[in-house]
């Protein structure tokens, strides 16, 4: 009996590639290529192809680095957690050195020789996920670790990152890192009371910081503009208003790629990056917008599936971290374009212009694939450390 062509094709692949999650890969690749097209449209005739071409180059590098990461032994990831964490920490500190570069108010970039810049906080998300998974899966906390100690450890590792990106005036990334941390702590199975206590403490700390005047003026203004963009239509409310005009004028099918008046007239600021969704929505309409959301949903769905099927808690937490990262960042990015979230400078994973963002996202895909490969096929043999009790209650 001959095998179907696809199976034969898969069989021809090297062993490490054979067990890839293909829907995940396809969705990420589709989004990345769509992003290149949108960047080409958003940058208009002025920049010729250069922005889109640079993005295409970044995509090639991103996939290459992803493939390189795939060659790693899943176990090695634990060993890398601390070096990667410290490496990213050093790079982020470097942004405060003379090598640091500010873009639209956020000092989150490092200048590299040859005119390239790199945004360490993008890679720090990977470092954060690794250190969280390692800490929360118990490998760094010896003995019979209580949930409190694990959670405290996780927060202890996450705090320097979050404070650093806040110092870079990058509120969006701080929010996403917080979301990743909370997600990983919750999914690690730490007791609900610990989680709630931790959350309350965090809220209290934030409230205290705000009360002590820790909220910068731009943060207040952006929040006020979120509540009512028309209060300052030419200032902080401008982006939101123009974005909504662009999205709203797209209709069902859009004006066609390269034909959106808002996009081509340059009315929406940074629409090759933070506001790239406005380009899809205006030029490709509701159909295009839904397609982007659907592709992102495929990535999140495959990521969740991988997390569920993971062989061990470490793998599950790595997958959870990556899923939380992609989903919260995408939600924040799309939400601000749609006017249901305050404006913060975060990119739309895979789609927005920016090499660091794209490469980090693809390394995130690689992490998911690694977890996927190390876990056995969960549809046939669900992986559980311990059998679930019939009541579904926790067995310790």
């Amino acid at each position: 009996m001959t095998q179907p062509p696809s199976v034969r094709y898969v069989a021809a692949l090297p062993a490490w590639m054979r067990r890839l999650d293909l829907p995940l890969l396809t969705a990420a690749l589709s989004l990345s290529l769509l992003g290149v097209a949108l960047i080409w449209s958003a940058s208009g005739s002025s920049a010729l192809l250069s922005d889109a071409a640079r993005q295409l180059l970044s995509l090639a590098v991103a996939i290459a680095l992803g493939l390189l990461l795939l060659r790693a032994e899943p176990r090695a990831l634990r060993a890398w957690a601390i070096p990667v964490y410290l490496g990213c920490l050093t790079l982020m500190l470097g942004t405060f050195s003379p090598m640091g570069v500010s873009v639209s108010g956020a000092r989150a970039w490092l200048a590299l020789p040859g005119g390239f810049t790199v945004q360490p906080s993008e890679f720090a998300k990977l470092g954060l996920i690794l250190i969280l998974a390692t800490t929360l899966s118990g490998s760094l906390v010896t003995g019979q670790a209580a949930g409190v100690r694990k959670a405290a450890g996780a927060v202890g590792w996450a705090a320097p990152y979050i404070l650093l990106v806040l110092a870079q005036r990058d509120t969006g990334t701080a929010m996403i890192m917080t979301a990743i941390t909370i997600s990983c702590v919750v999914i690690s199975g730490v007791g609900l009371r610990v989680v709630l206590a931790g959350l309350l403490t965090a809220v209290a700390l934030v409230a205290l910081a705000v009360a002590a005047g820790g909220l910068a003026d731009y943060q207040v203004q952006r929040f006020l503009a979120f509540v009512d963009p028309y209060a300052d239509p030419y200032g902080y409310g401008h982006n939101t208003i123009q974005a909504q005009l662009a999205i709203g004028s797209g209709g069902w099918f859009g004006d066609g790629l390269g034909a959106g008046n808002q996009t081509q007239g340059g009315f929406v600021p940074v629409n090759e990056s933070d506001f790239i969704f406005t380009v899809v929505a205006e030029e490709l309409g509701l159909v295009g917008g839904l397609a982007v959301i659907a592709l992102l949903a495929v990535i999140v769905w495959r990521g969740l599936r991988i997390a569920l099927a993971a062989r061990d808690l470490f793998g599950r937490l790595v997958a959870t971290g990556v899923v939380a990262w992609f989903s919260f960042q995408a939600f924040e990015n799309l939400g601000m374009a749609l006017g249901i979230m305050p404006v913060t400078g975060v990119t739309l994973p895979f789609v927005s212009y920016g090499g660091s963002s794209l490469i980090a996202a693809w390394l995130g895909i690689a992490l998911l694939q690694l977890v996927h490969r190390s876990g056995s096929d969960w549809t046939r043999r669900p992986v559980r450390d311990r059998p679930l009790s019939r009541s579904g209650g926790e067995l310790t």
Partner: protein
Amino acid sequence: MTAISTRRLLVFSIVLVGMALALVGRLVQLQVVGGGDYAMAARSNHLQVVDIAAPRGLILDRDGRPLVANSTGLAVVVDRSVVKPDDTDLLRSLGRVLELDPETVSARLIPCGAPKAAPPPHCHAGDPYAPATILAGLSHDRVQPIVERAEDFPGVSVEPDSERAYPAPVRLSHVLGYLGQPDQEDLDSGRPADVLVGRAGLEQRYDRVLSGAPGRKEIRVDASGQVEQEQLIEAAVPGSDLLTSLSTKVQRTAERKLREHAAMVASTGADPRGSVVVLDVESGGVVAMASYPDYDPTIWTSGISQEDYRHLSESGALLNTAVQGGFAPGSTFKPFTALAMAQQGADFTDTYSCPAQYATAGRVFRNHGDEAYGRISLARAIEVSCNTAFYRAADRMWRQTGGDRIGAGEIDPVAEVAQSAGFGSPTGVDLAGEASGAVASPKAKYDLWEQRKEAWCRAADDGYPVLRETDPARARYFTEVDRANCDEGQYWRQGDALNAAVGQGLTLVTPLQLAVAYAALANDGQVREPRIVTGIRGDDGSVIPIDSVRRADLIGTGSQRRYLRAAMRRVTTSGTAAAAFTGFPLGSYPIAGKTGSAQVDGVADTSWFASFGPAQKPRFAVVAMMSEAGAGGVVAAEIVRAVWDTLRRAPQEQR
């Protein structure tokens, strides 16, 4: 791994599904439900309909030379969506280039009526969404720094801007008028926000004719405001030109003489107002109309400063004395009294007694300087401006018409002729805001009493307590006058009739009214509405003529007017104005006229001279007036003489 972890992962999945649904829901809401509105709003973002300015029509003198033209200046315009009133650095450097302080620049950005707006004209008038003009009427050199360093002035642009220019060597301030920013009323009536509106004089009266109609075009812009494409919707209709009967030469003389004499009068500590009006007797066209004080019309072109405006309105320079000032006409009124006398049966060929004084009803009425001439002809009485002859005649007429029993609603013969001559109502000249003046009559006196009696009675009861402290005699006099007015101010007394006969008392005329009446005397007795604009010339060169309207009223008969004309000729040769006309070729170019020295309480007489000429076939009527200037035979007659010198020398077609 624990079951609780797996369960939480499932709950987490549900949360993520919820987030995805929120995004999809919002996307559908924006794109499908509200899509039309957003598309429309986005359209107005990049497609703008803008007005195309229509060039404003010119105002030309009788020879077709421009009195008001358009010149192209440069305006510094600020896009208010880019530049905010608190952009201090930019505003400061803009202020440095334009030589304005930053507060003034900043004030120009705030729409009038906004909470923190400066008062007009400093705030941004007109459409709150339109760019704000910081300063207009600028030369190339002034704006050079902005053009050269455009990158230092984001949102600031330099645009060509049409403004009014005044090439003729005359001011004509009140006649031409000026342009101002449209106010709320103009905008409500559909005027475009960026087109100036005529605010006074011909600019106001003929605003619709001069302004034409702006066109419209649709422009496509990108976010930086760069125009990508333009499409004409409607072409602009240029404004039409006004052809006028004004003579630059005559106007120039009138203004110069007014200024000279006003300066002399002012040097005595007085605060004179003056006016010269020259009419074409035949057509009713206004050849010259000057008023003092006046102002330089260019003061409005690049936006008048608050201080200048205050100065203008406080000094009264905005008032067009020729049509808005009311003055007692004095003896220039006597020809009309004479016509009333004739109507009442007096014979012009009789002799009239001209004693130094005329006593009646317990009062003594005097001649100027108490001079006595004995029995003289009426012509002589006009020539030497004998009051007593007219007093006696007025007294007789007053008795004939009923004396004290004359009804309160009636008018007497003198008032009747005065009204036929056009006094007491606007002449109908094509200028806005013309005053009516007043004609003394039993009715006028009664109306005044009705209006004022309460105040008079109250003042008489109070007895001027404050004034009594310092000047008891004067307070007593005032109290007596007020008491008399309170008790019997409604009656038309002998004294009222006598005063009215020599142009004193309640009668007030504008210089233009007197000129119109004298033009009627000079011509066929028919009163014409004076006209400044003789025709409207369209863009295609076609002219719509505007004719002067004749009123039905005739003053006097042909022989009466002939008699008066002959009498008034003697005023310039041997009468009260002879000195002023010394050296004037009266033989070949005879001038008929009448002086007036109207008494005003507390200040020197109002000096009048009203004339027409050449007397054998009058072409022009010339009237001059200056308040606080003394006898009419001096200041006013000298001004009029200078105007006649110009009229006489000017070639026929240029008069």
